[in-house]
């Protein structure tokens, strides 16, 4: 049994067909470890070598990768769910009920989609915090921060549009409240809401618009932005890290001997970053990939467990005549709704606008080139404190809005 299998494995991997798939030999030499990365379209996302600093778990906490992983999970589960989902006000709710009740594994897949979506909003925000607190958006990475802000907006947009699709009370009123907050914007507010909903109230027009945005427009935008985001990471010399010290010594590694220039002849020579500061660089295959695999396994296993035991909410069928009390926007907007409670202008217009504009401008305003790649550097005390306060206050507002607000938006204690 055993020799037979080994023979076959050897024969298979030695054959022409196998070789046409995988161009590298057994992954036991550094050359092949490099080739695995460069000759594999998925792994080619990574450079062959990465900075030692950047693979330290507690530097990135894997938040960017985790966000991407959740995005992939969402795409796959989303496609599967779309086979059953019908974007019609009369059938949407029923199709979700069918998925939950009589489609094999439908309940679990929907749970995965739901929890992964919430998880992604959280990991994306945390990823942004990590980038801020390690000053990773410093030159030359300002633009990638900007892309990141748009990725954050796309993530929230995807989550928000997906919120309506089950067409239950939760969805209906969250979107009604959420879009009403948008209408507080001066001059254009009402128009924005009108265009978004395809009408004045949440109805069939809104459902199909949200469906198209959720399944086509925003995922496409997301994929485009992700491509730029990743490409930029590579172009900006991998992810950030502290100033390198040591000898920028060349190590003669020739990945592609036939190549005499890089990047369409704009960059001459075979020089790649990995060849400098050799003591600071490690092979991706041995130092990064295992960590990613581990993180992936743990994340998926955790998601599976959560999805088996915790059901995604599905309330009563949407009924425009019956408003639940309180009617709450999706949780990530509850901080804003809490503010709207005090001042519609602040919560509905000023704060969201200033947040987005502020986030976009951060890398161009906060330009002291020091302490990049260091968590919470004392030299960046002021910006860190400001940003920290902002994040903490939004978090507190969201927690208050989520757990401490009951009927008529009165203060309640959740226990």
């Amino acid at each position, binding site marked *: 049994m055993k020799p037979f299998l080994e023979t076959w494995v050897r024969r298979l991997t030695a054959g022409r067909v196998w070789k046409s798939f995988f161009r590298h030999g057994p992954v036991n030499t550094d050359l092949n470890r490099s080739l695995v990365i460069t000759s594999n379209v998925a792994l080619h996302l990574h450079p062959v070598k990465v900075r030692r600093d950047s693979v330290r778990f507690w530097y990135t906490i894997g938040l960017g990768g985790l966000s991407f992983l959740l995005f992939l999970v969402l795409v796959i589960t989303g496609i599967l769910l779309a086979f059953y989902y019908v974007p019609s006000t009369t059938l949407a709710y029923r199709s979700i*009920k069918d998925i939950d*009740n*009589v489609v*094999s594994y439908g309940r679990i897949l929907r749970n995965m989609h739901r929890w992964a979506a919430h998880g992604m909003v959280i990991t994306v925000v945390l990823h942004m915090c990590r980038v801020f607190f390690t000053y990773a958006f410093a030159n030359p990475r300002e633009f990638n921060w900007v892309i990141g802000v748009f990725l954050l907006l796309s993530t929230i947009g995807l989550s928000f549009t997906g919120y309506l699709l089950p067409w239950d009370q939760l969805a209906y009123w969250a979107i009604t409240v959420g879009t009403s907050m948008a209408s507080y914007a001066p001059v254009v507010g009402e128009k924005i809401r009108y265009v978004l909903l395809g009408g004045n109230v949440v109805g069939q027009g809104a459902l199909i618009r949200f469906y198209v945005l959720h399944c086509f427009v925003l995922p496409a935008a997301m994929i485009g932005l992700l491509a730029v985001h990743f490409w930029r990471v590579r172009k900006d010399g991998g992810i950030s890290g502290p100033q390198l010290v040591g000898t920028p010594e060349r190590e003669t590694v020739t990945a592609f001997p036939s190549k005499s220039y890089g990047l369409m002849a704009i960059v001459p020579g075979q020089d790649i970053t990995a060849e400098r500061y050799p003591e600071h660089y490690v092979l991706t295959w041995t130092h990064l990939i295992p960590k990613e695999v581990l993180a992936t396994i743990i994340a998926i296993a955790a998601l*599976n467990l959560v999805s088996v035991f915790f059901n995604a909410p599905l309330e*009563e069928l949407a009924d425009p005549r*019956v408003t639940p009390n309180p009617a709450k926007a999706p949780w990530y907007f509850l901080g804003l709704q809490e503010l709207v409670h005090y001042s519609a202008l602040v919560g509905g217009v000023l704060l969201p606008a200033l947040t987005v504009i502020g986030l976009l401008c951060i890398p161009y305003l906060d330009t002291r080139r020091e302490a990049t790649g260091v968590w919470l550097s004392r030299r960046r005390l002021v910006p860190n404190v400001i940003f920290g306060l902002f994040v903490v206050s939004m978090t507190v507002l969201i927690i208050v809005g989520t757990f401490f607000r009951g009927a008529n938006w009165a203060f309640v204690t959740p226990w």
Partner: protein
Amino acid sequence: MKTAICISGVLLFISFLLILQDDFNQQWKQVQQRFATIDENRFYSADGDAYAAEPGVKQIVVSGLDRVDRCTTCHLGVQESKYAHAVAPFTTHPGDMLRIHDPKEFGCTACHLGQGYAVSFETAAHEKLEFWNETMLPRELLQATCGTCHLSEEVPAAPQLTRGRLLIRDKGCSGCHDLNNFFEDTPRGPDLEGIGNKTTPAWLYQWLKNPRAYLKDSRMPAFRLSDHEIVSLMEFLMSLNTKDSPPRLIKEQPSEEGNEDDGGTLVSESRCISCHAIHGRGGKLAPELERVGDKVREEWLANFLRNVHYYQPEKVMLEYNFTDRNALDIAAYVLGEFSEEAYELPDSVEALLPRSESQRKDRIEQGRKLMAKYGCDGCHTISGKRLSPRVGPKLTNIGSRLESTLDFGKMTDVVPTLYNWMYMKVKQPAVFDSTSIMPDFHLTDREALEITLALLGNRELEYSEEYLVRESERSLYRKPAGAFGELFERYSCISCHSIDKYGGDISTAPLTIEGSKVQYEWLKDYLLNPSAIRPLLAERMPRFRMTEREAALMADYIKKVYVSDDIPGFFEYELTSQSADAGRRLFMELGCRSCHIVEKTGGYVGPQLDDVGDRLEAGWLFSWLRSPLTYNAETIHPDYGFSEEQAKQLTAYLMTKRGAQ
């Protein structure tokens, strides 16, 4: 690192095992396996009639009711009688409801509620399920859902629902609440213009304070009013005093004392008791007269009796042709006979009365506002107008109200269901919120329960029109034409008699086909001088004191217009003495005399028949005997299933019964 990956790999594997078992361990699969092993199926399989149900989720798609019911995935025996004694959940559906409502067309959850989409006990909402509004109805309230489709007031197969709806209508709920259309009716209380002429402030105070102190079965509910509010309302009501110049105003004022004895005779002759209850006996159409003498002013009453339709434009009460003298006599009798003790204002209220004209004006204005606030105008119009729109919330969809939106106030020891909430609310309107303006209707447990049940079914769902059973084209009352119409309204016939199901139910004789039923001469005499046809009934036709011309005109019209083509007008059957003899034998054999008096002996359940040959048309008798239920669905006259021959013989016999003999 490798170790970590391996361990987490195992974790991943376990998590997938957990996912995989989710499909295999579904509850319904186990239930279906169990079904194959129950006694009924084992027994039949020996018979060769093996259990052949295919495994899998079963569903009934009812698009017209927007429902998909998968209940039969587990309730596998509901439609087969052989499972009548099977264990739950396989038992046959009890009763014959499924024969009238085929599950293929109606599904399960339209009646029982619960979540039809689900295929497990918990998620099917057999019991309260979070985020599913249609918890299965308990057996006791099952008739509620009949009302969602059956939009007619009466649903014969659902007596509780019907009683609940009749109560809703009788209590006048639609005065304050927007309810289904079939509850709409004329205002429940009298118009208030002229009440200042009719009664006294002291009576009004007592009445507003507690209507039941005056009338123990008062239809007016008790409002929780402060003395201050009552005084304002009282002043406002007393200011409604413009009805003081009726066409036949009695000029010779009470200096001329009425004669109580003559009044008493007139009251009994006029059959007031047919509509008004007196000392607990009598009709329920009009107010009880128990203590009316403490309420109305004598001169008002006398004028009222002379000018009924002036004071009562809706013409519920008939216009007797009383003279001034008669009216004064009756008023004197009523005030003397039907009174206990004059009402007086307590001193504390006396102190609240306005002292100046400007104060009075303020009070009147406040009273008008209070009238609108409490929605009094939902039942009582003023000169036919309402002051304000309905003050209560709309209830057309109350059955769909989410339980999460119910406020139980301090009543935290109650299972928080919609039906409990509604029951407590109608029973004791201030139970959750002491500031509620809804008045107390003094409902019994049973009434409150039936109203709750009827309201639970008030739901506006996306049901297709073909499922909705609306009131069969209720024919609207139209005033008959010409001189007959004038008389018809003058004598308020429609208050007691019905025509095409419209009208009162005091009389047992609908007028729809009265012309085919009775003979002209008899009818004319009866209108002039009504005799008791059914001596047992307290409700009898009153004496109208109409002229012979009027009686002839009415009898003529009725004979010509209120007829049925199905009943032969001229009866050519051989009414020979031979067949009459056969009819008599039949009559005696069948025990008709248990209920009818013939030849001076017999029972009192049905009308006496000794002069029936003078009274009824032969065609009617024949048709009635053939099929009594066709002509009166309410009758308790048994259908004997007579052959044509038998009915002819009986008719021949009965037509020989003439009073002149």
